[in-house]
């Protein structure tokens, strides 16, 4: 069995504020295999982006990694000194940000930014780096790269800029890319192209991707597995078809039910009542319990951990391997569930 590229275990991220310590990420664990795309979904503030920043080591003070482990090819990287971490960033782990319009430095030519990144991580000569930059632009689908390489970011359209951003992320052929809502700021037609591009790069290079988004369409098209996050915890994680088609966790069900489809007859969309708790005020037990329509006593006391669900609950579909859910409804000790 192959080794995961990235392995996150019981990650906790805290922000020290005047009002006390806020736990933005609380016990998140997952693995991502080579060439695999893990989609991470959830409402705003669920901790999706913070998880990505934690992996790449860019949590800004007052935030800090308070516990857990992040391993890259089995090596711990969460406790490295800043300089070693910098050497890994860009070379082994890359990140793509949400807004391509602001991700590029407006004062430098696209080529200058690419060449600088390539020279930082490789031993290439400047002219070889430039040739490689042109190759990269070509690979991400920028027409006439020999000419466009000398353009400034403002001379590119949004979709083209996101391609440049992806080219920048690929400079040193990283093993793992955190893509933080890479398509949110783009037109739908351009979104599809960017998604196809990420998919293609993944397949051809075996790069693992953590795709943070709140667009279920993007997840369904791109991801191999999906993790549903809620209040800094993983509520449900599993193969994408499983989780999207047959979600188990009441929150995941609500999330999938809130997606409009063309086939659905003019029913009202399902909405989850209430809103996500503030980090300063996460309820005891299951974080979702105040909004859950199937809440019972145990949910208010004991925090559920992601676990292999018990099958057969009211005609649920058969389970796929690798599906985990953090909900007491599905624990294999159903005795208390009756209460």
């Amino acid at each position, binding site marked *: 069995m192959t080794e995961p590229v990235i392995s996150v275990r019981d990650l906790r991220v805290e922000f020290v504020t005047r009002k006390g310590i806020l736990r933005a990420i609380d016990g998140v664990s997952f693995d991502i295999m080579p060439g695999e795309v893990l989609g991470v979904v959830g409402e705003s503030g669920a901790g999706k982006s913070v998880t990505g920043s934690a992996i790449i080591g860019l949590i800004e003070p007052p935030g800090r990694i308070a516990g857990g482990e992040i391993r890259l090819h089995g090596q711990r990287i969460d406790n490295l000194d800043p300089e070693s971490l910098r050497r890994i*960033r860009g070379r082994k782990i890359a990140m793509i*940000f949400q807004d391509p319009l602001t991700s590029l430095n407006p004062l430098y030519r696209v080529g200058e930014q690419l060449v600088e990144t390539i020279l930082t991580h490789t031993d290439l000569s400047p002219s070889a780096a430039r040739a490689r930059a042109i190759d990269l632009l070509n690979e991400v689908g920028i027409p006439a790269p020999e000419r466009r390489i000398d353009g400034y970011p403002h001379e590119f359209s949004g979709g083209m800029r996101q391609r440049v951003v992806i080219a920048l992320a690929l400079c040193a052929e990283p093993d793992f890319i955190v893509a933080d809502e890479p398509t949110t700021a783009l037109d739908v037609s351009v979104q599809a192209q960017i998604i196809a591009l990420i998919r293609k790069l993944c397949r051809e290079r075996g790069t693992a991707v953590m795709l943070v988004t709140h667009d279920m369409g993007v997840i369904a098209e791109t991801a191999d597995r999906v993790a549903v996050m809620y209040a800094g915890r993983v509520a449900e994680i599993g193969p994408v078809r499983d989780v999207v088609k047959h979600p188990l966790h009441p929150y995941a069900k609500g999330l999938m039910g809130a997606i409009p489809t063309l086939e659905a007859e003019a029913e009202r969309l399902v909405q989850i009542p209430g809103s996500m708790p503030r980090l300063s005020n996460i309820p005891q037990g299951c974080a979702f319990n105040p909004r859950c329509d199937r809440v019972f006593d145990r949910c208010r006391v004991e925090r559920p951990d992601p676990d292999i669900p018990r099958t057969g609950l009211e005609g649920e579909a058969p389970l796929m391997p690798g599906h985990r859910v953090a909900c007491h409804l599905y624990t294999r000790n159903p005795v208390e569930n009756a209460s």
Partner: protein
Amino acid sequence: MLAFVIRRIMQSAAVMLAVALIAFLMFRFVGDPVNQMVGVDTPQEEVARLRQSLGLNDPTIVQFGRFMWNALHFDFGVSYQFRQPVTRLLAERAPATLELAFTAAAFALVVGLIMGVYCALRRDSWLAQIFQAISLIGVSLPTFLIGILLIYLFAVILGWLPSNGRGEVVKVGDWWTTGFLTTSGLRALVLPAITLGLFQMTLIMRLVRAEMLEVMRTDYIKFAKARGLRTRSIHFGHALKNTLIPVITIAGLQLGSIIAFAIITETVFNWPGMGLLFLKAVQNVDIPIMAAYLMLIGLLFVLINLLVDLTYGLVDPRLRIAMRS
């Protein structure tokens, strides 16, 4: 680009025309120039003849035209108090003021930039806190007080540096005199330059700090960090260059005000420059000097603004396009 330059030059000319009008009105209507020239016992016919010969009976528009024509030839008339052409008086004193102003501006820019960048990058260090405190002093203390305090400390108590004058100067070319080439000239420059530049230095420092902190929060800096670029390159390549655009504007405008407001510093240090000349002219209602000084400062501001606008294009490629269209 050329069209942009031409348009800006034409705008500058319009501004200069307005300044000239104000200078002319001051020249013509603040007090009567003839009264300044004649004594109390001059006969009326003599006064009338003088008035006629000076062209003061011509229509105002003709007089303005003549004033402009003379101004274009650097002829601003004769100083009432010195009985010498104003242009020559100003030209004699211009090197002193310009050398002082540029030294002060260079000091303000270099030290302000370094301190500002340091304060932004090491925001919580004790040295940054000290810089912040110094900047508060620089912003709040009036120039003359700073000058007097510096004189008291370094000239009176410690006796390290001279308290007034330009020291020895060397003649360069036809009319330029410089204090840069002698030790005493350089020593004499230190205190006035610091006094004059301190306010601008703190201004630039605070501006650089605020801008840099702002830039460090942008997405492209985060993305640069995520690409693992070297910290030095991120700070001094990517962040600093983006910080410089507003700094260029302010620094340029401040250079103008440094020259214009050298008056106070020149007075405190008895610096033989244009500011001191202007102050004496105000005391003696020497209108030609005041009018010429006004024109000169106006011209300097306009030129500096023009330069600043052209520098933007060098730093920011987005503005090059705006200039082309």
